[in-house]
């Protein structure tokens, strides 16, 4: 399995993590300039989760995402320019500007949509997995969700049903310790999300979400299990968000120092970058960094240059 982790691949992971972070920073910055109308939930700090999981998927596999979905889209293969255009509300955006940050979707690469409802991703992914199973198309589906979403009843309903039906499903919890302003100890009486798995007779694995290789390997194992017809796997990735819950979060529930500490000690990109450099896979990485910066700059320019949708778009894409 580790054979898959060629140097090219590892550098690709690093690049994709950089891309996600650069995209998020640009989005937050553009938002602060008033260029983005709706709310943003930055994925900064969690990059290795999306990259490790989606790295183990094909572009045909499905992903159902959350309100914090930009990272999943990028890792699954969506284009930054059309994503940024979506945030800017432009017609060139993935959803013609109608969805915005909360609803970015790119069906062409299996990204079935971010979602504004906490706990909605489980069943949508399970359904994609059900279709994959029935049509025997060799795909799997991933439901991303946060620690806060685990206490929605849909977790229980879907996990039980998916296990009964042995669906090719990966349930991926990104446990960043917070649901909006509540610490997980205030929302979950259990200590570990992964512990819930045994009740549903599926494997439950808790791992350091910052370790992109470990995430990739766990996802690969889960995917193989899914394709073998053995059913879902629950992965709990211990991670952290470097920003507030959304653009306007004053973060009264944690100190600035604790966030600085997180950024210093728990940066999934910095740690991985050191590793790659030590292993001399990366060189100085500047060419990649420059390419990423250019990609983001181009995405912003593309978004800015794009037109807003015509008024008639109000009435398209809906049965009437």
């Amino acid at each position, binding site marked *: 399995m580790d054979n898959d982790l060629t140097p090219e691949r590892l550098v690709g992971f690093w690049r994709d993590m950089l891309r996600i972070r650069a995209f998020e920073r640009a989005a937050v910055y553009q938002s602060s300039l008033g260029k983005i109308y709706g709310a943003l939930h930055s994925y900064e700090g969690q990059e290795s989760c999306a990259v490790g999981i989606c790295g183990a998927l094909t572009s045909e596999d499905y992903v159902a995402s959350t309100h914090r979905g930009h990272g999943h889209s990028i890792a699954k293969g969506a284009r930054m320019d059309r994503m940024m255009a979506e945030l800017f509300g432009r017609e060139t955006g993935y*959803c*013609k500007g109608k*969805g915005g940050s909360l*609803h970015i979707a790119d*069906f062409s690469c299996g990204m079935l949509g971010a979602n504004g409802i906490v706990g909605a991703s489980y*069943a949508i992914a*399970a*359904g994609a997995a059900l279709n994959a199973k029935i*049509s025997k198309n060799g795909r799997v589906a991933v439901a991303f969700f946060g620690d806060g979403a685990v206490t929605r009843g849909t977790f229980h309903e879907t996990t039980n049903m998916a296990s009964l039906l042995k669906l090719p499903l990966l349930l991926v919890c990104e446990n960043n310790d917070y649901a909006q302003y509540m610490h997980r100890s205030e929302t979950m009486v259990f200590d570990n999300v992964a512990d819930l798995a045994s009740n549903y007779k599926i494997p439950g694995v808790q791992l350091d979400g910052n370790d992109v290789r470990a995430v990739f390997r766990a996802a690969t194992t889960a995917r193989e299990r899914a394709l073998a017809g053995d059913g879902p796997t629950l992965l709990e990735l211990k991670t952290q968000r470097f920003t507030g819950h959304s653009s306007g979060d004053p973060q009264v529930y944690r100190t600035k120092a604790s966030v600085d500490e997180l950024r210093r000690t728990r940066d999934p990109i910095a740690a991985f970058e050191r590793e790659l450099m030590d292993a001399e896979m990366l060189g100085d990485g500047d060419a990649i960094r420059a390419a990423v910066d250019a990609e983001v700059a181009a995405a912003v320019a593309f978004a800015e240059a794009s037109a807003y949708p015509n008024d008639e778009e109000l009435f398209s894409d809906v*049965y009437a």
Partner: protein
Amino acid sequence: MREITYREAIREALSEEMRRSPRMIIMGEDLLPGGGSFGMHLNFGELFPGRMIETPISEAAIVGTALGAAMTGGPVVAEIMYSDFMTVCMDEVVNQAAKIRYMSGGQARVPLVVRTPYGIAKGIAAQHSQSLEAWYAHIPGLRVAMPATPADAKGLLKTALRGEDPVIFLEHKLLYNVKGPVPEDGEHLIPFGCASVARSGTDLSIVATGLMVSKALEAADTLAAEGISAEVIDPRTVSPLDWDTIFASVEKTGRALVVNEATLFGSIASEIAATIGEKRFNALDGPVRRIGSPFVPKPSTPGLEKLSVPSALDVVRIAREMMPRRRAA
């Protein structure tokens, strides 16, 4: 034409479409031993092995999963045993299924039909007797069918199953055993948004939905004996609504009475009445009248239950009031 029941007509639509679309699946509780709600799918387990997905009592997961399957494949039917239980999966219906096509800028197709029995039955009270079509019809992105006859049930369901937008398919419990002529034709398709004129008349237009169509027809018989010629219009789908047929009738008769079983306040009957009043004001000889259930939960005891839904007599009574005095004997 051969006559079959409403139940058989629905069953026939389902099995014909299952044969036609090898990727179609049906999900729901109790599907295999019991055939699902009201025994609709008896033997489907043997007929369509692997494609009848029996589920736990987990309606949110049922509809959410059906949606995910529909977005990536389909057609998918999700059966909800009683429409009152839709309350536990409204997010999946309203925030997810209804909106994903729009929110994704047109990327999604959603060949999903949620079939569910609605309306009054026999004493099963407030949590098993509701008619909540006004909720679904209020939501852009959903289509809502309420067939009143076996033929319409078959034809509308087949159309629903060939569409790419989510449909809420409402079947009245008291209609399941009602018989009527139904085309054997596998291509018997009834378009959405196309009302049927269940009886033509000249004095008064009665627009009625679901089970109320039969009450309206019964009332029209009584009225005919009194010399009042009522036209009965069955919209068949309440979203979209066929305004053309309704308006044409009102223009002819000058009088409109709208009848539905749902609680009148906030109902589709009110929507229809408001729209007629707004768009065909000048055609009206008098106010658009409405009949619906009174503003109370459904009681269990038979006497009160009967009072809690509109009757043919109610229709007759209001229709009489609507006619000019000389007519009212």
